[in-house]
């Protein structure tokens, strides 16, 4: 690994944590070895687990889970937390930075996304290309409105256009949506569910981020590789194939944003 990469990563981490401190986030650093609860295995399949003194332990593989466990076990005065540090997935080490917001309001979430975009924009000569968003509840709205079998979900998730056409027919609104360009989907979905609360937040976010002048994509196929996200989810891309920022709602009342310090195109 080149010296400059290591130095740049540490410098970025220093600037980022200073920003979080300034914005009143509680910074957290924790032991990399932590108690593990077997019910978490489904959501964190790449976590290394071992046993000590009849207690399952793991090496931290995801700051979100670590902080959630910490939050559940201790009485905390803060609702906004920030972190930077390594995680181990499989046999590889990655560097994660990010924030977790517990019980946030819509303004807290919008402000935090904006804070991240603004900060990382100042760290690169590149510009943001696209933000991709989704909320699984939108597909539920289609299923309910058109009385569809829930098996359609798997076809939507894998964007299986040929099977969707076979099952629903060429003219079905969901087929029309899925065969449209992904950046056109938001307008089509707005025409279907204009007054839904889920879409209200997405539209609010879209107008909130207009100044960044990036493509805003809503795609029903878009999902997080982390299965614990269960509401709104997003990724932001520089001119790079991997996202710089990822985040979303989990655990019904928490919101996290993670910064990709390995291959997001920043370092």
């Amino acid at each position, binding site marked *: 690994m080149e010296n400059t990469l290591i130095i740049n990563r540490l410098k970025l981490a220093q600037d980022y944590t200073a920003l979080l401190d300034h914005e009143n986030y509680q910074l957290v650093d924790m032991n990399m070895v932590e108690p593990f609860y077997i019910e978490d295995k489904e959501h964190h399949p790449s976590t290394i687990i071992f046993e000590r003194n009849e207690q399952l332990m793991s090496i931290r593989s995801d700051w979100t889970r670590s902080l959630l466990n910490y939050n559940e076990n201790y009485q905390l005065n803060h609702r906004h937390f920030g972190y930077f540090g390594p995680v181990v997935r499989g046999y590889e080490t990655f560097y994660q930075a990010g924030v977790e917001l517990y019980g946030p309001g819509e303004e807290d979430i919008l402000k935090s996304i904006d804070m991240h975009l603004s900060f990382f924009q100042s760290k690169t000569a590149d510009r943001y290309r696209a933000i991709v968003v989704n909320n699984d509840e939108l597909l539920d709205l289609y299923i309910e409105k058109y009385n569809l079998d829930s098996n359609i979900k798997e076809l939507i998730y894998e964007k299986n*256009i040929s099977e969707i056409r076979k099952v629903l027919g060429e003219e079905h609104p969901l087929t029309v949506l899925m065969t449209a360009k992904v950046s056109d989907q938001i307008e089509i979905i707005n025409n279907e569910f204009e007054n839904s609360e889920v879409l209200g937040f997405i539209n609010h976010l879209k107008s909130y981020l207009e100044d960044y002048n990036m493509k805003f*994509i809503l795609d029903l196929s878009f999902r997080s*590789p982390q299965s614990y996200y269960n509401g709104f989810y997003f990724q932001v891309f520089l001119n790079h*194939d991997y996202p710089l920022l990822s985040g979303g709602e989990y655990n019904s009342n928490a919101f996290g944003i993670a910064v990709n310090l390995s291959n997001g195109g920043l370092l």
Partner: protein
Amino acid sequence: MITVALTKGRLFKDFTAYLEDNDLPQYIKPLSEETRSLYTVVDNVKFIFAKGPDVPTYVESGVADIGIVGSDIIVEDVFNILNVSQLPFGDCHFSVAGLPEQGELKTIATKYTNVASKYFREKKMDVSLVHLNGSVELAPLLGLTDGIVDIVQTGNTLKDNGLIEYEKIMDIHARLIANKRTFYTKEDEIYKFLTEIGVF
């Protein structure tokens, strides 16, 4: 520039025939040239030529944005990709086959252990699998196993070796797959290509 990973061999020939049927001469000529090069560039599209099982790996990693691959490959292993569309070529099927006089099947040779394992589990059949990398027809002929699970296209290979199909497991087709990230970051180029070849 987008990168399209093509499966070498029979599926590649089927793909070029498909391009011909769809009147896309700009792609046919460069793709039909006899060369040992492992890629060729046509306008804004780079085609790379890969072995079938490697195509989803290239697409999953983002080295390729799009892949043309047999569905046998993507049902045998799990890949984090968009499984966008069936294509109208590469039709064949998975079958259980063996010698005509074979009784109960207790052992099966196959390259596709995950497909076979799932099939026999669903049938509630207690079958041991032997993994082979190819020419699986040899296994029952030499007494290694009672039968095979393999891809059947015309059935001629089975017939030439004195084997028969017992049961079809599932159809196989060529499929167009796509990377989950570049589908967004290269949206315009990908849609242009997919529209050109008739997927959208």
